[in-house]
Every structure is written in C-alpha cells, then in structure tokens.
C-alpha cells in the first residue's frame, strides 16, 4: 500500500478509520513509521505533508463454536481531526476561531498553542467543551512573542502558532496560524511646520523601525559662531546707532573677567566703560550670536560686530567633545522614555508584538552659512537661547531644542506655547517640570506624539492596517 500524505485536517484517527484500523497505534507504531515517529515525536504533532506508512492489514482468524452467541466488539480509534483556524494569517488583536471535530465523548478537551519559531510563554492554556462531536475556541490574538532577546536581538515578523491537543496521546492534526507583526520598516521623514502662539516651528526628523525599535534621527545644523552682547543705554542718554549695532540707543557690549555682565560698550570708535550710574539689568542687555561672513561678523538678529573676534578651532578636541557630550545628553533625554504600543494590544509587557522602543540619535552637522533652523555654537559660558548655544553652558538646552525638532511646543510662559495642551502636569500648555518647560527636566508621554504618529505611519504602511498607537508607561 502506498504511503499516505497527510492533507489538511487529517489526523491518525481519520487515517485509521479510512484504512479500517481499529487502533491508530497500529499505524503509528508500525516499523514503517519509525522515522516519522522519531521526527514528530507525538501523534498530535504530525503536519500536513507528512508521509504516513499504512501497514498491510493482518487477517485475524477466530474459531467459534456453533449454537453459541458471540459479541463482536469493533474498536473505534478516538481522537481529533479537522482542527483548523478560521483564517490562515492574522495579527495581534485579530479575533480568530479554532474549531475541530472529534469522536471523544462530550466534556472538556485541553488544547495546546505553541509558537513554532520562538517560544511564547504567555500564550493561553485552552480548554474547549466538546459537544456533539464538535468544539470551537474564540481567541483575540495576544501574547505572541516576536522578538528574541540577545545582542543583537532577533526579530520574527511571522510566528506560526501550532494548535493541537494538549494530551500527546490523543491524535490530532496540527492547525497552524501565521501571526504577523511589523518588526522593521524603512525610513520615512516627518516634516511639519506649525504655529504656536504666533511662532512657527519646523519639525524635521527621520524615523525607521529596526527589530521593533524606532530609530529616530534628528539632524542639528550648527554653525561656528561667537557670542557678543548688546546693551540698551537709552536710560543713560545714549541715542541713535553706532558701531554696527542696529537698534537705536543700544550698543554692542562685552564683559570682562568671569562675569556675564557687560563692563564696556563700543561707542562706534572704541570700547569704553559703561556710563556711570548705568546698572545692567536682565532687561537691558542680552547675548547675541555672530557668524563670520567674509571679513565681517554678522549678528543673528541683525548688525555687525565692530571688530574681528579671535578665531578658534571649531573642530578642536575641546569643542568636539562638547558636541559629543551634548549628543549623549540629548540621546539619553529622548531614548526609551516610554514604549510605544498599538492601542488595544492586550499582550503582556514582556511580549514584543505591537510594542516598539525608541532610540534617539542626534547628529551635529556643521554648515558654513547662516539660515533658518541653524544653531549657532559659540565659545564661552553665557546664557544659551534657542539659536545660540554657548559651549561652556551646562544647561539642558540642547535636549529642549531637540524637543522642538520632534514637534513639541514650549511649555513655559513667554514661549511658543500650545494652550490646548493639558493633563500630565500641563495646564493650558504650561508645565514647568518637564523637558519643554522652564526647568527642562523630564520627558513626558505627550512629547513622543510625533514619534508615535510616525510609528503608526511606518507600521500601517507595512501592514496595510489602520492601527493607532500610543506611548505608555514602561
């Protein structure tokens, strides 16, 4: 007799019945199936396509006396067959049904679900109720593990979930469901301009998904610069403009020693001490960034410095190290603050299926010309602001400004505030105790909103779905 190649839904029970065996063990234990038995191990683990040797039936001769009554009992093999999922492919959150037929008596039957490529320890233990030789189990898919720990991790965008009987002595076909996840997605760019409080913010970053991690690339364009100060001397009777300072009554000024306070101003010809009785205050002097254009030093907000600044090596070990420290600081501020998960995913937090990490990677790219979105980097330890960072300033300003690149408004009075922000510490757009607030401290979930938006775009672009995502607590 030729071998029988198992078809969908067939188990050794159906074969025993088809070929007239009272016991399925007669087939499975036959020496012709020793290789198959060794390969699959158990009778409920045979797969579609497995070749089963059907042994020849042996004649059984009975000698029976006459004038007597005999009861002939024909053994019927028991088990499960036609076990099948309602769909071939699905993903976390989909509702699927596992159904099968059996000749087992009515009652409970335990089934086992197992990830083929990777173990999923959180998969449910399934007990179905057999009634009139049928049973079914409805499952909203969850807890299918798609990521294997390691360094590096290994992602499995497709996991086959094999279902069969839990009792290895009960024959059953294996029903396989392909559970899909998006583990990787190609880079896309987020590019958005929006206005808060009348001020436009241009958010730009690249994002891709690699092994369930969002890799967010922010490029900061920086320009070698110098810091100067302008001082408002109107109250000291100074009028008009001089020395290249463009504002009436203002003059370029510079400190002496370790203080930030201007000590002298340029009167158009030379540096002279501040007028007697003039007291610098928080509102009458301010730092300004200058960049070199030809032989001139041009102010970011207008005017030219009255003389050359001493040159310095922007790419010296000292200043490269500053940018390197900022890079570390920014990346730490924005990396893996919160996982991003599909809304509705009910999987355990130890399971990676719809859950994505975030790795921020910021890069300083030097430019030689001033323009929009250019950050000026200057030596010294004066007070940095949005467009001018002093390389001796240890504040968290770079991480804050990176927050703007990923589409976050300011959250302090006087900034580019979005008054519609509320909750999680924010009231009418103000939250002092966060990275976008005045104290430039912790990252909050709302600050990931653009990364979340991009996660949805990348995942749905790959899966064809329309799932929503959210930042959640770790």
């Amino acid at each position, binding site marked *: 007799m030729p071998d029988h190649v198992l078809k969908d839904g067939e188990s050794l029970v159906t074969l025993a019945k088809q070929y007239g065996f009272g016991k399925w063990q007669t087939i499975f234990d036959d020496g012709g199936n020793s290789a198959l038995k060794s390969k699959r191990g158990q009778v409920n683990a045979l797969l579609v396509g497995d070749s089963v040797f059907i042994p020849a039936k042996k004649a059984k001769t009975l000698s029976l006396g006459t004038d007597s009554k005999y009861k002939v009992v024909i053994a019927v093999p028991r088990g499960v067959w036609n076990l099948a999922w309602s769909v071939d492919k699905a993903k976390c959150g989909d509702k699927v049904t596992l159904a099968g037929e059996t000749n087992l008596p009515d009652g409970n039957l335990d089934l086992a679900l197992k990830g083929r490529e990777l173990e999923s320890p959180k998969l449910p233990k399934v007990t179905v109720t057999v009634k009139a030789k049928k049973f079914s189990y409805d499952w909203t898919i969850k807890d299918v593990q798609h990521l294997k720990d390691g360094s590096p991790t290994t992602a499995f965008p497709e996991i086959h979930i094999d279902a069969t009987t839990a009792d290895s002595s009960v024959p059953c076909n294996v029903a396989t469901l392909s559970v899909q996840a998006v583990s990787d997605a190609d880079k896309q760019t987020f590019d958005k301009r929006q206005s808060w409080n009348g001020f436009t913010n241009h958010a730009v970053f690249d994002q891709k998904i690699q092994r369930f991690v969002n890799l967010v690339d922010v490029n900061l364009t920086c320009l070698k610069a110098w810091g100067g100060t302008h001082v408002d001397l*109107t109250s000291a009777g100074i009028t008009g403009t001089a020395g290249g300072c463009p504002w009436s009554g203002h003059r370029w000024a510079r400190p002496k020693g*370790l203080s930030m*306070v201007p000590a002298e101003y340029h009167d158009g010809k030379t540096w002279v001490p501040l007028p007697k009785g003039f007291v610098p205050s928080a509102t009458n002097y301010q730092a300004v960034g200058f960049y070199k254009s030809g032989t001139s030093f041009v102010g970011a907000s207008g005017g030219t410095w009255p*003389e050359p600044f001493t040159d*310095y090596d922007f790419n010296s070990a000292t200043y490269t190290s500053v940018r390197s420290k900022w890079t570390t600081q920014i990346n730490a501020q924005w990396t893996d603050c919160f996982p991003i998960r599909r809304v509705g995913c009910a999987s355990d937090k130890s399971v990676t299926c719809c859950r994505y990490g975030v790795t921020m990677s910021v890069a300083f790219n030097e430019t030689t010309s001033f323009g929009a979105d250019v950050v000026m980097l200057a030596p010294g330890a004066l007070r940095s602001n949005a467009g001018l960072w002093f390389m001796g300033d240890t504040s968290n*300003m770079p991480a804050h400004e990176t927050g703007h690149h990923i589409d976050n408004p300011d959250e302090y009075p006087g900034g580019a505030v979005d008054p519609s922000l509320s909750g999680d510490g924010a009231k009418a757009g103000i939250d002092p105790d966060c990275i976008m607030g005045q104290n430039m401290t912790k990252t909050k979930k709302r600050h990931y909103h653009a990364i979340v938006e991009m996660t949805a775009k990348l995942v749905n672009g790959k899966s064809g779905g329309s799932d929503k995502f959210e930042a959640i607590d770790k």
Partner: protein
Amino acid sequence: MSDTSAIAEGLRAVAAVPALLSGFGVERVTERDGLWFERLSISGGGRVHLCSNRSFGDASGEEIGCFETDLAAPRVDQLVRDVQAVLPGGPAPNLSPGDVRVTLSVIAAGARWERVVGGAPPDLEPYQPLLRTLDALAFEVRAHPLRTLAMELKLGAPLQAGEQSVPVTLTFENRGTAGYWLRNPSAFADQETEHARLWYAPQPSVQPGMTPLPPEPTYVELEPVARADRPLIWIAPQSTETRRFTAAVALDQVPYFLRAGFAGYDGADTVAGQPHLRGCVFSNELEIEPRR
C-alpha cells in the same frame, strides 16, 4: 472686556480715588532655568521690596537677598502713569527656556493685568517706560538692605604654577537690618544646588582691535578645613561670618581670574519661622599670576 481695558479702567480709578491706591500693586518677576529668581514689588502705599536669589549677571559679585524701602506718594502716582503708558503691551514674545523671562503684573481696583516680556529689543520696546522705572527702583532699593548676602574671597597664600592646595577664606556678609539662616558651606557635599567652589580661568590675551574669546572657567570644590555637622549658620544683621577652606588647583604660568561661588538652594524660605536665605552668590574677582 479685555484685561487691558479692565486694567486701564482700574488705573484711572486708582488715579482718581486715593482710597483705591492702597490696593494698587506692580510686580516684576525675573527668572531663568529654575536657578535665577528676582521679585521686585511696589505697593500703592509706596513700599518697594526686592528679593533676589542670584545675580542675573551671575559671576558679578553682586549681593543677593532682600531689600526694602518706601517711595514718596508722587512717585507712586508716576508709577501708575508708567503702567498706563505701556498698555496694551507688546506682541507675545518667543522666549527660549535659556532666556531670562520677565513677568510684569499689575493689580488696580480689582483688575489684574499680566504680561511676559523679553526677547529682542523690538519685543521689549513697548514696555520700556515701565521697565526703565522698575530698573531705577531696583537700583534704589538695593541701598536699603533688609537681609543680604555678599561674599568675599581671600587666598591664604600666593599661588604658584603647578598643582597645589591653597588656603581659601570666604567671608559672608549681611549688610541688612535682619538676620537669617544660611546653608553651612562647611557641611556641603558638592552638588549642583549646594556647593562652595573656586572658579578660575586663564585670562584671555587681549589684542587691540580684536575681541578675545571669553574665558572658559573650571572649578574645584572648596574643602572645609573643619567639616561641620550643623547644616545652617546664623548670619546676624550687619555682621560677617568667615569660613576657611582649601582648594586643590592646577595652574599654568599665565594670569588667571578667580572667583568663589556659593550655592545653597535646598530647604524652604523659613526654618522654624526664622528666615532662611537661599540662592547663589559669587565673590569678588581676583586677578592673579602664579609664581614659578
């Protein structure tokens, strides 16, 4: 009714009805980065009060603390007019958190008006009549110390090129009429909010016609000669307290700027009902040239 129309009406009422003047108030809060904070307030009764926890010039040697004086009635009337002159205020500023943020607020006859000002000169311009008056008042009130802290730095030995441990004396001075508790610098563990440090930087070489790069100071922790257990020291009115430290510095054979910095931000504004002065102050600046 907008807040500007309301305050304009309130200011007219205050100017017309002397009884309403006692409730009039102007406040300027200047802050940055959670570390710098200054409040200047003027009441309708003429009381001017200034409290500062750190100089906005930072390493300027300026004293911090509280100052208080009284204005004559005509100057309060003028202040009302200065407020009227800046209404309705300027456009909304776009400040970065690194910028100094100045908040002006006014109360008059039950109407309240508040604006955050700052940024570039054009942003400040609409507020200048009031800002200049407030700057002048802040300067004036500093002549009337209530509780103040200034710090003097003295080195106990000449500095030499190379590594060395230098004796350092810090003298804390209260020019005010009231005493206060201060975090004890001899009990600090060096951290951002509580420390005593010696800052130093090589002096930039100045060439005529060329603006030098700013000094880039580094610091060392000041180690108390005798470490104290008690976290607070009492700075009595019009008195000084001196503490001795050592500083381990490494210097080249070039001229240096030096200043000491004291920060004591931790705790509340009072201790068992007594004033507790919190903030950061820098000492006088020394210019030294290490000996060979």
